[in-house]
């Protein structure tokens, strides 16, 4: 260490020769979010089953959390604090550190189209994990937006009297339940792609654990 300092080399350790892809706060909030979102989805499915919105959609209890409605509601309204507090920390740091601006912007429809076409042809380069392609940018921005929508629509279902203007914004209590459901569906669709790609490109998973 002293040697490095005196020899005027960049202050790095040997292992840090690779660039840091995800700072610690990203990794911590990512994994807390992963836990929170799984608890929210699992318990939410059990709650949904008590009064399904669609005749053809029912979530088997094995995939749900809480065993019955009361248990699922306890899980849902406990995990919501973890999800919301962690989400606020993540978005605040993402904005304040400039990470969102650097990583997610600029984004243009043309880039998304080109990168998506390249991905379908199997020609989308994935060498530099520090740079997100346009499709990734769109998906990450989209899932952050879905996070906002699911939290606000959830609040409007939870408190349709105290937050009645928010509930009205979502088209009333009954409509807000559909909005909440579709926001969940969006997040589940994202998760399916996200997890599949993380497993296909294991170094991306390693980076979210160790940072590099």
């Amino acid at each position, binding site marked *: 260490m002293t040697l490095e300092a005196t020899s005027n080399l960049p202050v790095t350790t040997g292992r840090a020769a690779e660039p840091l892809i995800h700072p610690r706060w990203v990794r911590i909030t990512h994994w807390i979010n992963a836990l929170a979102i799984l608890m929210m989805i699992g318990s939410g499915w059990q709650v949904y089953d008590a009064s399904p919105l669609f005749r053809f959609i029912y979530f088997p*209890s094995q995939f749900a959390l809480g065993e019955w409605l009361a248990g699922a509601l306890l899980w849902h309204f406990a995990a919501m604090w973890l999800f919301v507090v962690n989400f606020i920390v993540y978005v605040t740091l993402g904005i304040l550190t400039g990470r969102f601006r650097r990583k997610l912007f600029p984004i243009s429809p043309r880039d998304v189209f080109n990168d998506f076409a390249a991905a379908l042809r199997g020609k989308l380069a994935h060498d530099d994990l520090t740079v997100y392609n346009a499709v990734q940018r769109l998906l990450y921005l989209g899932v952050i937006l879905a996070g906002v929508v699911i939290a606000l629509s959830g609040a409007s279902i939870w408190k349709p009297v105290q937050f009645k203007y928010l509930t009205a914004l979502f088209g009333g209590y009954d409509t807000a339940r559909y909005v909440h459901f579709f926001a969940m569906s969006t997040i589940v669709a994202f998760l399916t792609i996200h997890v599949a790609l993380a497993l296909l490109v294991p170094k991306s998973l390693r980076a979210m654990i160790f940072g590099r």
Partner: protein
Amino acid sequence: MASPRKTASGVDPKLLIKDAAKLLPQSSRRLFLRGAVSLGALSMLTGCDIVDGPTSENVLRVISRFNDRVQALLFSETTLAPEYPESAITRPFPFNAYYSVDEAPDIDDDAYKLEIGGLVDNKKSWTLPELNALPEVSQITRHVCVEGWSAIGSWQGVKLSDFLKTIGADTTAKYIWFQCAEGYSTTIDMPTALHPQTQLTLKFDHKTLPQAYGFPIKIRIPTKLGFKNPKYVTAMYVQNNDAGGYWENQGYNWFSGL
């Protein structure tokens, strides 16, 4: 049991049984929580020092009590539940209970008396004609079930805060406990009891409350989930201890505010 029963008009019996079944757990009524992952993070969040290796169920109950306090803070005595036009009333308005409508209490209106107890000056019981003689208020509001569905109904009766004044209730007490004919019960907080829309309900859609909807008395609270709106009410106690309730004791959130 075999005697012909009055079927409440406008109630679809098929709907009733289906709805009643859903509030019940699948296997038993215990609150065992499958999929108990490590809840270290959650127990830290509550800031509570749980020494004796908490089960996830205990942690969840602690958070549920924390949520009671949050909801009490969010509750506003002046925020009114939205009211709707007559055309918005859900017809038929669903019956919902943990039993079928055939098993709903059949109360003899001549013998009926609402028992009053606890921290009140006048503990005299009230007959239905006496209650019906009190000034009537009306509301068309949304009933939201803990299961998720909702329905808009029209209720008439006595403003509960006026009734509490009439009987000389100590409104600095913390709770009101309602006891019902079939053994159901629930406890509500005093601020909710004093809310301008909280109603001692005697009528549905300007007609005597049908058996399915809680004859002779329902407590209509549009700021709380349906299960905190007791039907077939026979006694009302003003008190400082939380007597819990049928569903609350099985794990449903106590405050259950909207």
